[in-house]
């Protein structure tokens, strides 16, 4: 049976351009700019200095904070600068710029022993050292999810293979081509989180991925592949947990409060690969698509490759109106192509004007479409109108902080109100006051 959640929308998926294209390895660029923050949490301090020669896989940044993840060099070469560079999050972040010597000289690697010989603590430590963070877009350090706070009992690891964002086919290709790593990664995460059950939720528009993972997981009775309805935002954590396990995450709580750790399938694959080979998280698959792309595709790129290098490699047909990091529903519009790919960059979209037209907002006509589609069962128009008028207490009262910013309300609004943007404003204001 196909599982789902209340609310949601059916945007045009536009995955045909890349869903059948195998993952291609992109030639490494002349220079990489590796951000020292590619995750939620504390920024890393650089461990190298300008002029140093670094090896591929060498740790170049780390932090002692509990919520952080180290970063590693994705090429071998010379550090030419450690400076502020534009980041996919819209700000600038201290980044290590490395001139590639194209030797791909690896640091001395030590593949991990077999899964059976590792304890949960050892696994979690290895995942941290490999710099693994959420690769679906969130970028939360994976090791930090595996250590629940006192009093919380975990019982399941849920892998997110829904990939409900239009255009993106990254997770689809990872599940299809590297299904063994995905399942092995899930088993590692289950052992590290000390849980018995593992689930992989996949939208039914990826039947080949469902088949591949079912075949791969057939020997493990503790792993279940869940077929999910094709509906946005099926891959949002709370909706995914609702659909796969029927558990409702209460307002203000995290998935771990209902006993679940959610990870992206690409994250699981990265865990498996790191443990298998010893190579830390220094490359990832991204979908490159949009009307302006000459050759769309699914590329395996080194972390730190700039968007400009990728666009030059794949060619542009026209000047993009918007350049998006991530998917078109929740991705961030870039102001510059000089931003670098992070561990959490799932795609680069070069959208033409007719794909992402700006529409002039009108006034609310109370059609309630936003209420019908909100997967969090909020009343977006009320929250947005209070936020617009600076009445943040009322916005908070109506559940502004429960909003996950999926954008479904803005997508359906017949008068083009920027509802998500207003609610974001309310959230940042409310969080600032709470601090």
């Amino acid at each position, binding site marked *: 049976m196909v599982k789902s959640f209340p609310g949601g929308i059916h945007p045009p998926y536009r995955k045909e351009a890349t869903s059948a294209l195998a993952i291609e390895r992109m030639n490494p660029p002349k220079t990489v700019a590796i951000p020292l923050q590619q995750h939620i949490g504390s920024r890393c301090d650089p461990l190298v200095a300008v002029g140093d020669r670094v090896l591929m896989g060498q740790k170049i940044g780390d932090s002692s904070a509990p919520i952080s993840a180290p970063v590693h060099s994705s090429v071998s070469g010379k550090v030419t600068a450690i400076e502020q560079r534009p980041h996919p999050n819209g700000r600038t972040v201290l980044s290590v710029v490395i001139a590639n010597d194209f030797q791909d000289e690896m640091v001395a690697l030590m593949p991990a022993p077999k899964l059976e010989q590792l304890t949960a603590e050892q696994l979690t430590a290895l995942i941290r050292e490999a710099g693994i963070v959420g690769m679906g877009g969130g970028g939360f350090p994976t090791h930090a999810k595996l250590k629940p706070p006192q009093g919380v009992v975990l019982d399941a690891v849920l892998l997110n293979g829904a990939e409900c964002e239009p255009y993106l086919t990254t997770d689809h290709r990872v599940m299809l081509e590297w299904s063994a790593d995905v399942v092995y990664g899930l088993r590692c995460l289950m052992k590290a989180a000390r849980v018995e059950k593992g689930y992989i939720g996949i939208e039914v528009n990826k039947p080949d991925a469902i088949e591949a993972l079912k075949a791969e997981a057939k020997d493990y009775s503790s792993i279940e592949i869940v077929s999910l309805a094709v509906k946005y935002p099926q891959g949002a954590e709370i909706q995914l947990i609702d659909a796969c396990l029927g558990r409702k995450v209460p307002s203000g709580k995290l998935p771990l409060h209902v006993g679940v750790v959610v990870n992206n399938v690409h994250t699981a694959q990265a865990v498996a690969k790191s443990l298998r080979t010893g190579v830390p998280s220094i490359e990832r698959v991204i979908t490159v698509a949009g009307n302006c792309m000459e050759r769309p595709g699914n590329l395996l790129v080194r972390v730190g490759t700039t968007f400009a290098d990728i666009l030059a490699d794949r060619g542009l047909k026209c000047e993009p109106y918007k350049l998006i990091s991530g998917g078109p*529903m929740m991705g961030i519009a870039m102001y510059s192509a000089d931003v670098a790919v992070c561990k959490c960059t799932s795609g680069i979209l070069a959208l033409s004007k007719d794909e992402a037209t700006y529409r002039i907002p009108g006034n609310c006509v109370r059609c309630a479409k936003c209420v019908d589609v909100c997967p969090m069962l909020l009343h977006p128009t009320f929250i947005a109108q209070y936020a617009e008028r600076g009445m943040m207490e009322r916005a908070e009262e109506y559940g502004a902080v429960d909003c996950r910013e999926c954008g479904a309300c803005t997508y359906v609004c017949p008068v083009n109100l920027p509802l998500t943007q207003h609610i974001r404003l309310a959230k940042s204001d409310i969080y600032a006051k709470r601090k």
Partner: protein
Amino acid sequence: MEIKRLAVSSSPHLHSGDSVQSAMLHVLIALAPAAAFAVYHFGLHVLFVLLTGMAVAIAAEALILRLVKKPMTAIRDGSAAVTGLLLAMNLPAGIPLWTITIGAGLAIGIGKHVFGGLGHNPFNPALVARAILLVSWPERMTAWVGPMLISAATPLSEFRTSRIVPAYGDLLFGFKAGSIGEIAVFLLLLGGAYLIYRRIIDWKIPVSFIGTVALLTYILPAREQSSYFAGNPLFHVLSGGLVLGAFFMATDWTTSPVTKRGRVIMGVGCGILTSVIRLYGGMPEGVSYAILIMNGLTPLIDRYTLGSRSGAR
């Protein structure tokens, strides 16, 4: 290729393409069969009434937009045409063209723009105009006619005096006297289903409205009756303006509740008021007043049904 300029905005970067204009077009499509049947049933005069209603409403909208210096582009949303058409469909077939002209002007002026235009009016503009016309020219507004504009009683008023129930087929397919747009119940149901399929309206209001009327007219005894559970719900559902009102008037975006629970309260409230007016009131029909009263309660309904989340968690 060099990138010179990039547009930056908050996500999402896609839009459904839905607009007020596309919604109003769907409403016009949904109303068209019932309107066409009325022209066939009553005669060509009805066509002029419908066209006058729409044309005057659009002209009034244009004039007011100009007077209040709002962008004329608002005329393109089609909401004025829908208001004009709905008003015309709520009038008797023999209505003179000057009456609908005044009515359409009132609907747009008093019903809509004095409150600030689309999205701000508390009451359904077409029903506001109908109510004003009804108290201003009560004889003309209740001069019901059949085919060829020959005088005839509506099934509801006939039932009041003689307790005669017409054939259900005639009630369903529209071979009866009544307002222009209310007679073709079957075609209105098709139009309503189309709007639900297109997600322009939510099923909750029409279903709870019609369901409540069916239930109450079955349970409650009409005047001069004493037994409970002896009513004729099918007759009440198929008669008068119930189907037109439930699918096309009570579901008006602006004047009905935004919350999901509120929409059910709206429908049930409309149903209770309609049933009480029909069974015990001074008038044979009560759909339009029921909707207007519930329009007035809509802000309160919204307020008391807005939880921090709408209740499912």
